[in-house]
């Protein structure tokens, strides 16, 4: 992957996209092969330290229900011992368009689904990682909220320029957000290409069928 690039992993359930994503922060150990970050093999980095360097947004937000919004957003800076963890959290909340004065002291259960995903993104951003992993971050949202969040995510990447890996089953989302798309099937890569190339020239019948089903071909 290139620095600052957004890569979308796409495929059906069981195609291995989440497994691949989780091997980047050593939540899953790969059977074979090696993963490098900034030229360093991740296998040589303490997994806890590695994960603190990498932002992570799960599908359901994964907010800690017993922590208020600000404490959730401050998680990684706090883990890293930052004295100004709360300030970093507030800054991150502003990045996702949540006013910390309004939302900082709320419980996760008091937020809408879209707001919870925004907090989850803020939490992943708070320590300003250079890499972010997102596991179907907008999959459970209604269409309007999803569009809002996709816009917000694009704007964030434009301003912060971090490298991102995005798991999705939605080709339209992949086209809207990713620089390149990886199509996975049964744990194998079918094609890696920029969205326009993928649309124009599907490499295999499977990719073509996938595009057809999404109404993009």
């Amino acid at each position: 992957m290139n620095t600052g690039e957004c890569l979308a992993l796409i495929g059906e359930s069981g195609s291995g996209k989440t497994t691949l994503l989780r091997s980047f922060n050593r939540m899953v150990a790969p059977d074979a092969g090696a993963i490098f970050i900034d030229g360093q093999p991740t296998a040589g980095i303490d997994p806890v330290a590695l994960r603190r360097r990498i932002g992570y947004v799960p599908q359901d937000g994964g907010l800690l229900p017993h922590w208020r919004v600000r404490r959730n957003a401050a998680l990684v800076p706090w883990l890293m011992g930052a004295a100004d963890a709360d300030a970093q959290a507030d800054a991150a909340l502003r990045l996702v368009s949540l006013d910390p004065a309004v939302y900082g002291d709320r419980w996760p259960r008091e937020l809408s689904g879209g707001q919870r995903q925004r907090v989850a993104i803020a939490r992943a951003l708070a320590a300003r990682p250079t890499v972010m992993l997102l596991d179907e971050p907008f999959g459970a949202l209604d269409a309007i909220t999803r569009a809002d969040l996709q816009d917000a995510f694009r704007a964030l990447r434009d301003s912060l320029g971090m490298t991102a890996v995005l798991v999705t089953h939605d080709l339209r989302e992949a086209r809207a957000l990713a620089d390149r798309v990886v199509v996975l099937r049964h744990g194998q890569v079918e094609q890696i290409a920029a969205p326009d190339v993928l649309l124009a020239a599907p490499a295999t019948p499977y990719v073509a069928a996938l595009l057809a089903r999404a109404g993009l071909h």
Partner: protein
Amino acid sequence: MLRPVASLLAVALTLIASRSGGPHAVGRGTPSTARPVVVASKPFGESYILAEMFAQLLEARGIAVDRRLGLGATQIAYDALRSGAIDVYPEYTGTGLIAILGLPPEPDARAVFARVAAASAARDSVRWLPPLGFENTYAIAVRRGTADSLHLATLTDLARAGARLRAGFTADFIGRPDGLPGLVRTYGVRLRDVQALLPAVKYTALATGGVDVIDGFSTDGLIARYDLVVLSDDRHFYPPYEAAAVVGRALQRDNPAAVAVLTELSDRIDETRMRALNRRLEVDGVAVSVVAADALRALGLTAARAGVEAAAGPAGGGRRGRGSLLEYLRAERRPLASLTARHLLLVAVSLAAAIALALPLGVILTTVPGHADGVIRVVGAIQTIPGIALLAFMIPLLGIGVWPALFALFLYSLYPILRNTYEGVRGTDAGAVDAGQALGMTARQVMVYVRLPLATPVIMAGVRTAAVIDVGTATLAAFIGAGGLGEPIVTGLALSDTRMILSGAIPAALLALVVDTVLGAAQRHAARRWGGASD
């Protein structure tokens, strides 16, 4: 979170230790004239009267006394004596011969006393003081109507007619070799049905026709009251049951003066007098302390008015007038309040100790799932031991009184807390745990900041269950002299005094409700605070 619990525990333990004041608290090694003599009884009326007489006589001679009346039964009382947890209680030579020493019955009273005294001294360093002067043998009793219609006068007659009769025997009698097994062996008695009855209800059950035969004692006051017929032991199966004070090793060594005082009662109480005393207690409803005080005065052993105010609490003192339950509760409110406080303290300390062990253990088990089921099952098995049996097991290890009761309650509290901690921690919201890990929490941080807080409502539910079980089980602690609200229950059962039973049972039930309500509110608060699902 654990530090305040630990200091609370320390305070409570100090409190309990300072209140229990038994030989354990003082230390057995050093002879001390200041140590109170621990006087105990078994849980039936006559035993209460005799023990109370021992106690008041000692007090009248200026010797301090600690009463542990109503201990479980023969096994518990004798074990407590042998292990030094109590100093003296009234026992019967026949019981000593057969139930305690396991020797064959023999008919001559003098010979039995000599054998029992020698064997107890040799085996257990227990001394039988010269008998008090009366025998109290088993009295197999039937209603007069039954005796007339079936022509029953002897146990041989009972064997003939047994197939038509339903028996209600005490558990003690059903089990001991000089009880039902002996009857069966000697007379070939076969009964239509044998039910186990508490001593407190057997006379009522017989009088109202619930059963046809019971085991009474020949000195029971109720035999005359219900106009019962006692079947004679025509084959002389029963050994003599002479009542006597039995004295433990420590008292013989440390306080010979007290032993000498107790021998003042030897050969002073004949069967007529004992039956009259039992009748005053069981039929007339006079308080134990009054019955005992009057008896000592009548024997010329104490001066007028001495010792009447000695006993405290529903066990010994109090007025056993015939007023309503409410009046009784009002009259007894002070001892009941202190028994309730004692009860709560027993529950609180055992519960705190159980939390201190089961919570970390439950957490550790979630990290070694292979061993969890086995450990939890073993702890669960403790739960299936009946309370009184568990308490009895404790005596050889911890004596009687507060410590074994605390330990037994502690054991009972472990399972619900352990089980809920394990399940609660394992069942934590997977999304929150995964997010914590993926964002760089260490395993310990995931446990402390995610799993444990989220499991709190489930753990609290376990603590709540344990607390309510404890409040109920703690009533059994009175059988081993630990006090609490079981004390009036045990005494009331022994004396067939319903008001006294209720004066312990009602506060205990209310206490269980209050504990359940308070912990339920705490649990709901925890659920609101920590259990909030993401919806």
